[in-house]
């Protein structure tokens, strides 16, 4: 078995600044802004009205169908307004403005506790009701992911504790501090997936977490902890499966096609923490780091806390220039500080004006092949980039597997010519998606 996937890159880690800092509770913002679109799938459906007083933990919005999860109130307070709120994509979506009470410890849990012995269907329902989505960043509804399609079977449950993005240390801290919750979560997951073996994958730079988890494995639980080499993007599902199981997920397929299900370690911990109490997700651990902030660290921040408030509290410099939600490799640059923390936010990285090297001159592609040697799925980003520039989008998808690209950013990271490859690919994919939906109308011969 290979001990790692092919290619990949080694960006500077920058984790040492926060990986020793314990998770701290963050203060409640006076105004919480909750967009309903926090996960992949249908937005949650608001079931409260303006002016209504709500308690912490109360369900504010229900799941709108199967590909959706409910939203719980992160604070006790009053619904001020239901209107359009900005989200990170730059769009305005439906959302709730929630004015929090100054000091209210009141908390309700509307759901019913789910025991580990419940049926798989009940557990899945419980996970959905808890509003749990993938906390690694993708925010894919977890119950959907855990539902094993008919005719497929799950043998391996992979717990993803890799966290390969530079700066981020949330999973690291969660593993160190919430080991019991993790194993509780694994119990639920084993039950609902029917997996026979659990592998916790941890990168070599988090040896302490690996040691701790190995130590704490409950007797009789089929869990192994595997330490994998430090390499970006080790944390990507497909890469991790290759590293741990030596199998490749087929192009366009899912981990279940190789009998595996991958769940993020923080998500697992959350399942283990919430389900026994019938609670919903209200806050999450976020790493705040980067040269632009003074009080770096890992914080437990209520969902919906406005970014501006967070930055003020952690002492961000006045001249901040770039803010990313997520890590620096795949995170999204923020254009509007009035957006708020969502379930998918794993980190906030802040750069001040002086920290940015803006003289990245773009040279023509010299076909050096650095990107080919970096792409974890062996695409040819150089060729793809050239094709994208020439707007040959169909060729990119048909002949060069564009759609397999998951935008990890390794190619752009190594490109000596500073070509915005990832942006090209993202653009090409979005255009192709648009064309696919528009096609039937255009050609009617």
């Amino acid at each position, binding site marked *: 078995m290979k001990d790692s*996937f*092919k290619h990949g890159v080694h960006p500077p880690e920058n984790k040492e600044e926060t990986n020793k800092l314990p998770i701290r509770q963050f203060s409640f913002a006076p105004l919480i802004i909750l967009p309903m679109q926090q996960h992949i799938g249908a937005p949650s459906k608001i079931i409260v009205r303006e002016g209504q007083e709500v308690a912490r933990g109360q369900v504010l919005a229900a799941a709108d169908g199967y590909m959706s999860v409910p939203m719980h109130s992160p604070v006790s307070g009053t619904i001020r307004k239901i209107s359009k709120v900005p989200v990170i994509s730059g769009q305005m979506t439906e959302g709730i403005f929630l004015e929090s009470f100054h000091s209210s410890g009141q908390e309700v849990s509307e759901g019913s506790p789910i025991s580990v012995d419940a049926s798989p269907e009940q557990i899945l329902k419980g996970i959905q009701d808890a509003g749990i989505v993938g906390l690694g960043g993708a925010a894919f509804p977890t119950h959907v992911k855990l539902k094993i399609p008919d005719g497929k079977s799950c043998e391996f449950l992979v717990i993803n504790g890799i966290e390969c993005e530079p700066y981020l240390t949330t999973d690291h801290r969660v593993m160190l501090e919430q080991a019991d919750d993790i194993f509780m979560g694994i119990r639920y997951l084993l039950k609902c997936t029917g997996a026979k073996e659990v592998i916790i994958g941890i990168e070599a730079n988090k040896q302490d977490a690996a040691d701790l988890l190995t130590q704490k494995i409950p007797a009789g639980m089929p869990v192994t902890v595997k330490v994998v080499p430090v390499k970006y993007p080790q944390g990507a599902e497909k890469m991790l499966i*290759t590293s741990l199981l030596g199998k490749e997920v087929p192009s366009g397929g899912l981990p279940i096609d190789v009998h595996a299900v991958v769940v993020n370690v923080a998500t697992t911990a959350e399942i283990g923490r919430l389900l026994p109490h019938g609670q919903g997700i209200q806050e999450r651990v976020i790493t705040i780091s980067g040269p632009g902030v003074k009080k770096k660290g890992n914080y437990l921040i209520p969902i919906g806390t406005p970014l501006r408030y967070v930055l003020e509290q952690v002492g961000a410099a006045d001249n901040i220039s770039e803010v990313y939600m997520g890590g620096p490799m795949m995170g999204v640059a*923020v254009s509007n500080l009035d957006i708020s923390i969502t379930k998918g936010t794993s980190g906030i990285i802040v750069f001040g004006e002086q920290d*940015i090297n803006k003289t990245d001159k773009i040279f*023509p592609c*010299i076909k050096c092949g650095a990107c080919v040697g970096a792409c974890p799925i062996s695409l040819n980003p150089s060729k793809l980039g050239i094709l994208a520039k020439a707007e040959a989008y169909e060729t990119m998808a048909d002949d060069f597997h564009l759609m397999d690209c998951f935008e990890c950013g390794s190619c752009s990271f190594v490109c000596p010519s500073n070509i915005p490859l990832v942006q090209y690919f993202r653009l090409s994919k979005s255009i192709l998606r648009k064309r696919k939906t528009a096609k039937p109308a255009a050609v009617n011969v």
Partner: protein
Amino acid sequence: MFSKTLHISTSPHIRKGVSTDTIMQNVVWAMMPVLIFAVFSFGINALLVIVTAVVSSVLTEHVLCKWSNKESTISDWSAVITGILLGLTLPPIFPLWMTFLGGVFSVAIGKFVFGGLGYNLFNPALVGRAFLQAAFPVAITTWQSAFLEGRFFSISSSVLAFPFAEPKVDSISGATPLSAFKFDHVMTDSSDLALGLISGSTGETSAVIIILGGIYLIARKMMNWRIPVSILSTVFVLSGILYLIDDTIYPSPLFMLFSGGLMLGAVFMATDMVGSPITPLGVVIYGFFIGLLVVVIRVWGGLPEGVMYAILLGNALTPQIDNFIRPRVYGTKKTKS
């Protein structure tokens, strides 16, 4: 609070920090020892030839950019590399006006018409060299012996030939080991070849120094080591087989490796990133192909040396190789071509 306008750009937000111009600069540094040895062994003639080649390349690039209302691209150092490489492949007593013409041709036809750096299909310096070879076959096969007395002070009259006039060859010419072998079956000692105690193009004589430059670039990861390794090993193995078959007709593999422009070509020219395939396997095939052609042309061809043609043909073949050799994409079955 937060008074400045935010900046947004695409992920990834961090970069490795090696840029194209630094790569180019490093290639220039790696070639410096070769250049110095060229001047050391061939004297001021070689210096004049190389300097002229560099000046004409850079000047052509600048002028053409200005003409087409583009920003001058001489700062990316690629024109300097083209100039140095061209200079290194010319005989030390090559007339300066021809050298200048070669530089102009290299940059204008070899690179600029294709759209500049990154788009050139062939190695520009070799395009210039091939042009000169075809245009002035006599001048380009007239060599100066190495380590002549007074080489640092006396300039050959052929170097200073009047523009468009035929150069007059003075009596200092010597034969290259390859033509000596091809036409007179005279073998040159391998150690002389390795150390560069022979005549030849300005930069091709000392294999050892060229290898040092290559190792520097490989260590800095600014060169694909597979290319020189595959070319040289192909030449070594093929000529070794021939040598074993009949050592009276065919030269020894070491002689093949160290003679002529093979080292210079394999290390500095075939490795031109733009003209070589992009995948590791493709690169090995490219190297094998070049090595094969070098052996074929040297052993059976009409010309004593074929490295230049082999590399140019390798460049021409690169799009095909890239077309057929594609890495197997993760999660897919065998690649379809």
